[in-house]
């Protein structure tokens, strides 16, 4: 028996091209006769456009065309859409204003798209964009989440008080009763700071149009090329689906920000026909800051009702979520079904009531960013639990234990039904690895050096494996969230796997190949993963929400099963034995009771040659497809513990130790999974200590529009991480996996802030905990 490939830290197949500089990211690609696009962007947060004068730009050498929203309209190109309908608690549908790819009469945030200049070179296009004269009538603006509903500024006529929806989930009455009976109530005001995703590869698009066939091709930085094609054809109506090909080549990180269908990509593919030549656009980093969809930006009041022993009786949450100036592709779902459904955490909470108001502001659209709603939920629940422990003078691990769910399946009061988990196990392992028992001593030692130490817990849960199609459909999703796979065996026995999942750093080329090679008993080098091209892969929903393994790989697993079943059938004919006598193991089909054997490759060849089986009963060839719709969400969970040391003289917070113990179910490649955890934690620590997207209240200008002002986590801001795993195999999919891509970003902010508030001895303290804020908090105490 050959050793299984599952669970092994197989080195990545994709690395060679990246370490030798031979990958192909969108901006690396060029086409003969291509033109270059540069966008004219609004310098104002809110303004009417009186007139756009393109003549000065058109007079410049190299400028070919200047296109505006009116040109899109003339070609019947529709606005961008938000694909998830949310209904307010009064039953009314959400109030969505229009979202034209290029402005029609009004701009609504700094960086909004006014016009596009197409020119022979990037430099000429840039000069052209500066030469376009736009006559604006400035309007007052509102950028802050808390002010949006009371402001006199009206951003979209369709949405009075800038309110998109007022949504609620849970049982208000039961929750009220829980609070009436509570021995202890803990309340917190929490701000979940706006983040700017900053995948290191800026967005880019290369649009082409072939006038002979009428086919458009968009090569772009997308996490889900099929969804892009669907939206651009069915809704934006650039071209019918069969006349539009979308390719996502190597993509340099996404974290959510490359899920969405943006104006720039839309305009490039449309303009390719107008101009009659390929149109290429690559964002400068400054444009990424202005116009990539941002993340988070919640203002929340949370309250926890407990009995005298620290058992939670009820949770009440009121959140205002900033969705920016337009509803981005999945924005409406993030602060609702991806947020409030997670408010039960790892705990048995009898009653929960959450109200969410979503608001328009004069800021960049806000949509899913690593974790998407789940970090916000975890932050609320875990900050409240820690505060409850402090108030009740309970050990923070103990209060969590008293409330853990231990029986599965567990129906929460907020839709989700957890299938499996062992929260005690991950907590115990984390407590051990973090050496919690030695903390008091370390704190005392730090105090001798005039430093303040703090310890913070975060026992999080997330819902991944998005998602059972009927379930999300009933909640307002415009699409199903299954995944497709095709396993194509070549006559020589090598295999191509076509998947609708998309890798932009997750290592699918390795993990997926590991599973298929393991199942078929062939070498991993014999398996090629094909993704990211709508012409090659029939359909797929892409990669986000930690869904690739649980959904994408499940589809591959099922298609592989079908391949084996057919191959077995064929092997039986070739070996002239009954099919029941054929066993498949370690890449060989063996006829029991005889010594006849065929390798997988031999059966593959036989399948294509078609000589030895009745082709009227079994079709020749060896290729199978599967569309897998998950039965349930998956529920990765775990415990993260952060230890900080604060220098009271400077306010600098040092993360002295960060421990993460996660339960992701079955792990196919632990090396890749740990890498995902590291990256997530870094983004979570970034949110807690460094990152904050800030708009000026008066002018509506983005104040954090470059790496000079937006503080990205760098190597010396972070420690090495202590990462461990506990495993409960997921019963809801054929592989047992749950998903690992977001855990760090979900769990870390609460762990860090619980540690900081512990060290400072304060109750409320908002992210990011910059040295200045920490120092001020401490000097307040000194005063």
């Amino acid at each position, binding site marked *: 028996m050959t050793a299984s490939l599952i669970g092994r830290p197989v080195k990545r197949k994709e690395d060679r091209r990246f370490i*030798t500089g031979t990958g192909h990211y969108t901006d690396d690609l060029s086409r003969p006769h291509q033109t270059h696009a540069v966008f004219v962007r609004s310098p104002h947060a809110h303004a009417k456009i009186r007139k756009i004068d393109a003549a000065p730009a058109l007079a410049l050498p190299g400028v070919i065309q200047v296109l505006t929203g009116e040109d899109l309209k003339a070609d019947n190109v529709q606005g961008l859409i938000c694909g998830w309908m949310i209904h307010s608690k009064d039953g009314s549908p959400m109030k969505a204003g229009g979202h034209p790819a290029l402005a029609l009469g009004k701009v609504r945030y700094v960086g909004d798209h006014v016009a596009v200049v197409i020119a022979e070179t990037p430099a000429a296009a840039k000069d052209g964009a500066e030469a376009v004269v736009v006559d604006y009538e400035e309007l007052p603006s509102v950028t802050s989440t808390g002010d949006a509903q009371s402001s006199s500024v009206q951003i979209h006529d369709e949405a009075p008080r800038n309110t998109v929806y007022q949504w609620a989930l849970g049982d208000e009455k039961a929750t009220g009763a829980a609070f009436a009976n509570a021995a202890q109530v803990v309340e917190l005001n929490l701000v979940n700071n706006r983040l700017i995703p900053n995948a290191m590869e800026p967005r880019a698009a290369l649009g082409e149009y072939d006038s002979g066939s009428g086919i458009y091709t968009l090569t772009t930085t997308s996490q889900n090329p099929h969804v892009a094609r669907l939206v651009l054809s069915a809704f934006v109506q650039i071209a019918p689906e069969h006349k539009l090909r979308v390719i996502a080549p190597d993509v340099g990180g996404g974290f959510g920000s490359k899920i969405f269908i943006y104006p720039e990509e839309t305009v490039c593919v449309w303009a390719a026909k107008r101009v009659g030549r390929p149109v290429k656009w690559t964002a400068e980093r400054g444009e990424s800051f202005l116009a990539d969809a941002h993340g988070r930006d919640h203002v929340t009041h949370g309250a926890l009702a407990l009995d005298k022993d620290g058992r939670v009786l009820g949770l009440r949450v009121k959140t205002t979520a900033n969705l920016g100036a337009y509803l981005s592709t999945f924005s409406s779902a993030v602060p609702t079904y991806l947020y409030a459904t997670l408010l039960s955490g790892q705990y048995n909470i009898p009653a929960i009531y959450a109200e969410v108001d979503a608001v328009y502001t004069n800021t960049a659209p806000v949509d899913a960013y690593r974790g998407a709603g789940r970090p916000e939920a975890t932050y609320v629940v875990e900050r409240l639990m820690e505060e409850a422990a402090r108030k009740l003078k309970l050990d923070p691990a103990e209060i969590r234990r008293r409330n853990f769910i231990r029986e599965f399946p567990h129906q929460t009061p907020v839709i989700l039904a957890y299938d499996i988990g062992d929260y005690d196990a991950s907590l115990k392992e984390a407590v051990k690895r973090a050496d919690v028992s030695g903390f008091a001593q370390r704190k005392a030692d730090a105090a001798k050096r005039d430093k303040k130490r703090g310890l913070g817990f975060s026992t999080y849960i997330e819902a991944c494996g998005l998602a059972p199609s009927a379930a999300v459909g009933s909640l307002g999703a415009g699409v199903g969230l299954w995944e497709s796979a095709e396993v194509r065996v070549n006559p020589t026995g090598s295999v191509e796997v076509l998947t609708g999942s998309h890798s932009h750093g997750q290592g699918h080329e390795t993990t997926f190949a590991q599973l298929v090679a393991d199942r078929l008993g062939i070498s991993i080098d014999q398996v090629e993963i094909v993704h990211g091209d709508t012409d090659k892969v029939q359909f797929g929903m892409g990669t986000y929400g930690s869904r690739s393994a649980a959904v994408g790989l499940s589809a591959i697993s099922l298609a592989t099963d079908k391949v084996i079943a057919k191959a077995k059938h064929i092997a039986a004919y070739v070996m002239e034995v009954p099919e029941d006598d054929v066993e498949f193991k370690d890449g060989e089909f063996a006829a029991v009771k005889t010594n006849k054997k065929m390798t997988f490759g031999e059966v593959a060849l036989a399948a294509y040659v078609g000589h030895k089986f009745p082709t009227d009963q079994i079709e020749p060839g060896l290729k199978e497809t599967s569309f897998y719709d998950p039965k349930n969400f998956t529920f990765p969970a775990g415990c993260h513990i952060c230890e900080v040391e604060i220098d009271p003289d400077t306010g600098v917070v040092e993360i002295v130790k960060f421990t993460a113990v996660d339960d992701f179910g079955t792990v196919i490649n632990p090396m890749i999974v740990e*890498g*995902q955890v590291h990256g*997530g934690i870094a983004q979570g620590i970034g949110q807690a200590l460094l990152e904050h997207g800030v708009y000026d209240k008066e002018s509506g200008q983005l104040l954090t529009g470059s790496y000079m002002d937006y503080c*990205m986590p760098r190597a010396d801001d*972070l420690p090495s991480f202590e990462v461990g795993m506990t495993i409960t195999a997921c019963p809801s999919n054929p592989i047992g996996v749950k998903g690992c891509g977001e855990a760090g970003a979900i769990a870390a902010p609460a762990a860090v802030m619980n540690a900081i508030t512990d060290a400072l001895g304060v109750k409320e303290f908002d992210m990011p905990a910059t040295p200045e804020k920490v120092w001020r908090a401490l000097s307040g105490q000194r005063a």
Partner: protein
Amino acid sequence: MPKIEMRVNGKPISVETEAETLLVHFLRDRLGLTGTHVGCDTGQCGACTVHLNGEAVKSCTMFAVQAHGAEITTIEGLAKNGKLHPMQEAFREHHALQCGFCTPGMIMAAVDIVRRKPNADEKTIRQELEGNICRCTGYHNIVKAIASAAAGMGARS
């Protein structure tokens, strides 16, 4: 248009280019060496790092003409005769890359760090990486890779 002569990855080149062309664009657009990436417009991400006469520079912060007469090595030129550089091997071995976008700049910077500080400890490596941003890995494995390559490269010399 000024004419630039330099050696790039060991090959002599002589090309006319506009005076305002940045070295990174020259490498990418004129020479087709797209392994060197552009991650920002403020000289802060390090995705564009190459070696100029053996030292790491950010190729977005200088004009191509300033490299006239120089010896340039890009990520494409780091492996010799089909054999990966120990730093490339270490990045793969330690899973120090995910999306790969920062990787060429990281590797070029890392080679330079080890050249200057062959015995760098974790803290020093982290400080030395100040000029390179990675959004995917949390740096954990990058630091590990550099430390292990340093050990390997030291042993070799």
